[in-house]
């Protein structure tokens, strides 16, 4: 069977969930060969093998951390040349997309970004995209070269599938351009202990209606009762009530959880763009006319300051 290259998204050897989802999708079109780069690369092999990677190509040169994006493109290109895969899959993170695009250009291939599903087709893999704030669904193909496709988190289930996961060193020669953009410093984000926003099965978000940073613990408590991640609208972020990294929407994170709960969020098109593909949508808003209610599976017209704490208590009691 044809091989499919999968670029591994990991933090110091801990593989992030979207990569395991990619392995599920990759198996629909071939045998996954994973490419793990940077510190801890080799430590990823175990879990990748358990999820279907027949081979894991590793390189942990310092260039990956010291310079932006291009060293990873050089490495992925080296893997591409070593393997001759039928497709290349990358997680749709900001960096993933940039790496994928530059690789596609170098190998003379088209690129599709932000796929939400992937199937084998007669003319190569067919990608589903949700476009225009998810108001349209498109099916697209790469018509030239070896398909390079980036896939959004939460697009496929994680399915274990035992495979060899044989580790092989990847030889990379870094091009002249690889040292062009220096990473002068890097400050890791402090962990909140909650699930990562894009990976979470449940997301609880707060908007302008939360009315102050001091009230966000209400949203956090509801999130914690459900084991959820916390999101925010841009209005809440711009007001400084919650960090920008929690913004859901067109210019924030795009989430696609099983359950999305919006409190005090009106449902502007740019917010919808980042959450409309959630499986179940719930809103709590005191304005019956708020556009968010057009999207919901369940909506409560009410004051979030009453409804949210009561809901949290109710959930905690039921779980109790």
């Amino acid at each position, binding site marked *: 069977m044809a091989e499919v290259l999968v670029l591994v998204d990991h*933090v110091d050897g801990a593989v992030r969930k979207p990569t395991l989802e990619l392995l599920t999708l990759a198996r629909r079109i071939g045998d996954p060969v994973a490419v793990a780069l940077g510190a801890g690369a080799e430590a990823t092999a175990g879990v990748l093998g358990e999820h279907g990677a027949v081979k894991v190509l590793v390189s942990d040169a310092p260039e990956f951390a010291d310079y*932006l*994006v*291009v060293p990873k493109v050089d490495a992925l290109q080296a893997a591409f040349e070593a393997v001759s895969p039928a497709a290349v899959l990358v997680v749709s993170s*900001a*960096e993933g*997309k*940039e790496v994928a695009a530059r690789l*596609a*250009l*170098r190998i003379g291939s*088209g*690129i599709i970004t*932000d796929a939400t599903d992937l199937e084998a087709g007669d003319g190569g893999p067919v990608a589903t995209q*949700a*476009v*225009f704030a*998810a*108001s*349209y669904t*498109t099916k*697209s*193909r790469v*018509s*030239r*070269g070896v398909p390079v496709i980036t896939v959004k988190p939460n697009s496929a289930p994680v399915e274990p599938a035992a495979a060899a996961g044989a580790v092989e060193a990847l030889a990379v020669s870094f091009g002249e*351009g690889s040292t*062009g*953009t220096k*990473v*002068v*410093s*890097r*400050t890791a*984000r402090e962990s909140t202990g909650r699930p990562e926003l894009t990976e979470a099965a449940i997301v609880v978000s707060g908007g302008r209606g939360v009315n102050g940073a001091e009230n966000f613990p209400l949203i956090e408590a509801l999130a914690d009762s459900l084991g959820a991640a916390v999101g925010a609208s841009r209005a809440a972020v711009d007001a400084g009530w919650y960090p920008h*990294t929690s913004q859901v929407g*067109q*210019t924030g994170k795009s989430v696609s959880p099983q*359950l999305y709960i919006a409190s005090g969020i009106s449902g502007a*098109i740019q917010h919808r*763009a980042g959450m409309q593909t959630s499986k*179940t949508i719930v809103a*709590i808003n005191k304005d*019956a006319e708020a556009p968010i209610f057009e*999207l*919901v*599976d*369940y*909506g*409560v*017209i009410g*004051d979030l300051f*009453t*409804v*949210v704490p*009561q*809901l949290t208590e*109710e*959930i905690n009691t*039921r779980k109790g």
Partner: protein
Amino acid sequence: MSLRIVVCVKYVPDATGDRRFADDLTLDREDVDGLLSELDEYAVEQALQIADGADDAEITVVTVGPEDARDALRKALSMGADRAVHVEDDDLHGTDVMGTSLVLARAVEKTGYDLVICGMASTDGVMGVLPALLAERLGVPQVTLLSEVSVNEGVVTGRRDGDTATERLEASLPAVVSVTDQSGEARYPSFKGIMAAKKKPVESLDLEDLELEAGEVGLAGAWTAVDSATERPARTAGTIVKDEGEGAKQLAEFLAGQKFI
């Protein structure tokens, strides 16, 4: 020495209006209202601030798009850019990101640049990869997704807020930069700016001017193909209850029924 800044701006359908596909599965640009992609306003703003801090700078805004795309250039000129380049050619219809980056790279090279500034993503295609492709094609550093940017003595520095970390980046000019909507509010054009924009030069270029063949761009030259586009069925109307003391309980009931609790 003068700092030559080129800002790439895209003309896009208004996100708050009706967006749809034409019969050939390309974006319908004929009957929908368009505007300068809001995220490119941030790129223009940063260009203006960098130019303000430089001894001598010139800002050129470049767009690839149909006749109406001139509106996007006018808006950028009225914000304060000095001149504009409009790449317009019937054969560009249906160009994908590889073609668009090729055309932009040629246009930027022809214009001459020390610094190219882009938005983080367009508000229609939302791929967020064009700046990286432009850097690859031009063979210069990419310093992308910056929430803070400054240029000093031929060096661009910036802050990139990633998924797991915040990075400080540095590269020598020439370079391609993209800025996020966290980089600072974009200014509104003043009346004076709007009047002045009418007199600023807008240069028109076609494929021949850029030494490109029709087959390298457009729908025929695209490296990707859209097979179908279907409007998402409207969500079936959900249950909406008014909270009269029982709202939270009812919602908890719903969540339990869906096995979330």
